[in-house]
């Protein structure tokens, strides 16, 4: 029974992943350190920026992921418009032989916030073209629903802007998105430390995607292990069901002694 509680795969578009932690490689400057962090994270799915890698198959991040048997999720980081994102996704499909894409269309370089208009447009085009689309989106419940309606395989709302480590700024919105979604909700961006990842899972997210929080941590390998534990802990807490919050104390041992 105890072991079974940990057999709880993440399912996206019919594919099962043993880990609910999706990693990114941005910010990693040392492949040997990244390798140790990826191993410690237990991740089975990791996103890489199409525009920041050597898709021709050199001995970089891609080869590392293949060696570790981690599925590659190409992303469209750096794209500012729908057409650009669609082109980048198609190049990724051609180069890597996968029709999965983490769709990222940002509005400006300063906030790196998703551009909702371009994002929805690109998502629709890519779904129609046969892609499994995982869009990085604002924590906007309406937009999340619209993305699901055009056929995205998951929705990935931000906790806070990319690389800020500010955690989940609007937990209520994440709960709203989760409560209406019938596809997996993946908390993407803003995670700073383990408690942020645990909170995402407690709110009902199916998985957490993070990069900087691990790659730029003082000890990336240890932080990756922390995130793994936090995601597992948060998931179990969500499934277990938390107690209601009360204003007044309530004794945990019974007030009347029935034992006799």
């Amino acid at each position, binding site marked *: 029974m105890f072991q079974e509680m940990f057999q709880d795969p993440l399912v996206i578009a019919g594919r099962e992943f043993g880990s609910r932690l999706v990693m990114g490689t941005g910010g990693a400057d040392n492949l040997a350190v990244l390798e140790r962090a990826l191993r410690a994270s237990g991740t089975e799915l990791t996103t890489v920026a199409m525009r920041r890698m*050597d898709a021709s198959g050199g001995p970089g991040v891609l080869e590392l992921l293949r060696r570790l048997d981690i599925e590659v999720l190409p992303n469209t980081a750096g794209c500012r418009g729908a057409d650009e994102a669609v082109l980048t996704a198609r190049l990724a499909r051609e180069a890597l032989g996968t029709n999965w894409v983490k769709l990222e269309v940002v509005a400006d370089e300063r906030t790196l916030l998703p551009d909702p208009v371009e994002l929805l447009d690109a998502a629709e085009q890519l779904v129609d073209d046969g892609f499994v689309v995982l869009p990085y989106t604002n924590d906007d419940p309406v937009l999340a629903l619209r993305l699901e309606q055009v056929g995205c395989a998951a929705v990935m709302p931000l906790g806070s802007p990319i*690389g800020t480590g500010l955690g989940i700024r609007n937990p209520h919105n994440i709960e709203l998105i989760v409560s209406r979604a019938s596809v997996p909700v993946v908390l993407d961006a803003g995670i700073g430390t383990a408690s942020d990842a645990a909170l995402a899972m407690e709110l009902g997210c199916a998985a957490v995607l993070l990069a900087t929080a691990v790659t730029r941590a003082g000890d990336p390998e240890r932080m990756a292990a922390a995130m793994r534990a936090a995601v597992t802990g948060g998931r179990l807490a969500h499934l277990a069901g938390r107690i209601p919050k009360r204003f007044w104390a309530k004794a945990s041992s019974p007030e009347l002694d029935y034992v006799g």
Partner: protein
Amino acid sequence: MSLGTVAVVGGGVIGQSVAWRAATAGHRVSLVDPAPGSGASRVAGGMLAPLSEAWPGEEDLLDLGRAALAHWPRFAARLTAATGGDPGLRTEGTVLVGLDSADRAELDRLAEHLAGLGHAPEKLTGRQVRALEPGIGPEVRSGLLLAEDLSVDNRAVLAELAEAGRRAGVEAVAGRAVAVRGNRIRLADGSTVDADVVVLACGAWSAGLHPSLHAVRPVKGEVLRLRARPSALPPPQRTVRALVQGRPSYLVPRAGGGLVLGATQYEAGHDTEVTVAGVRDLLRDAERVLPGIAEYALVECAAGLRPGTPDNLPLIGWLEPGLVVATGHHRNGFLLAPITAEAVLALLDDRPPPAPVLAADPHRLALTREPLSGVSR
């Protein structure tokens, strides 16, 4: 005195340093490169800055870098003695600056890390930074002074290495190497070059020459060259390294008002085209650090390929009988050139190399022993 024959493949700063030092030591040396000094070494910034590059988990690299730094003053003096030229060694140090409070926290973390290793840097406020370098703008709010870090004029060094090598009797072979096995080099025209020892120093092109160097990968970097115009503030005295909302950049002064601004870092195979975004990002961040550069001339935009390795340490040592490798120096080619040359000389003479070089043993990487599929032997 003539010792054995040595053929060096690759005429970047590493290959040329090895060739010159080996020829001076009495070896008969040839240098195989169709265009020496035209690759990443020409694009480089020329920073000799192990402290400001330090990062937790890379202590071996810091030890190697600090040992290398100690070699530079004598190496530069020898070069000047050999050619009468000036490699542009600057001893004013490096000031590392940050803009927002998160940048400051990163600087604090580096300072703490260095203090733990016994190299505590001096912490500066924005005002103190501007007292040292008046051109630095008002957005800079914190800094660290790393007085030990040096810089050189990379192109002056390359020119002098070429001249010093010529005078020491290094024979130039203008062929392009396509494979190296043991002490034999195969050239693109089908001919071969044999020597008692071959030294492979092909930087980002090393992987294609020998299957055991598969893990050496090209890491693209764009670098701009600026020059102060008469109407503009002069460049800083020190090397300025900046964190602008987490994005790193550097500005290295040159004699005559020159300023080298770098560098982007990403992996795009052997692509050396300069992109619009690369130039924009560098200029945008640099202008926030040194607002006066808006009045500078933009002289050159170039991209080079750093030879990266999985753990960011170079590969220096015997790879197989007859073949020494000296590659994978990543961002640190100029810094590590003198100690690499000394290490290769020691290996040629059957002496142990300087101790910090042992961490660069090419056999440390499992990958170099087991080339992955797709690479034919």
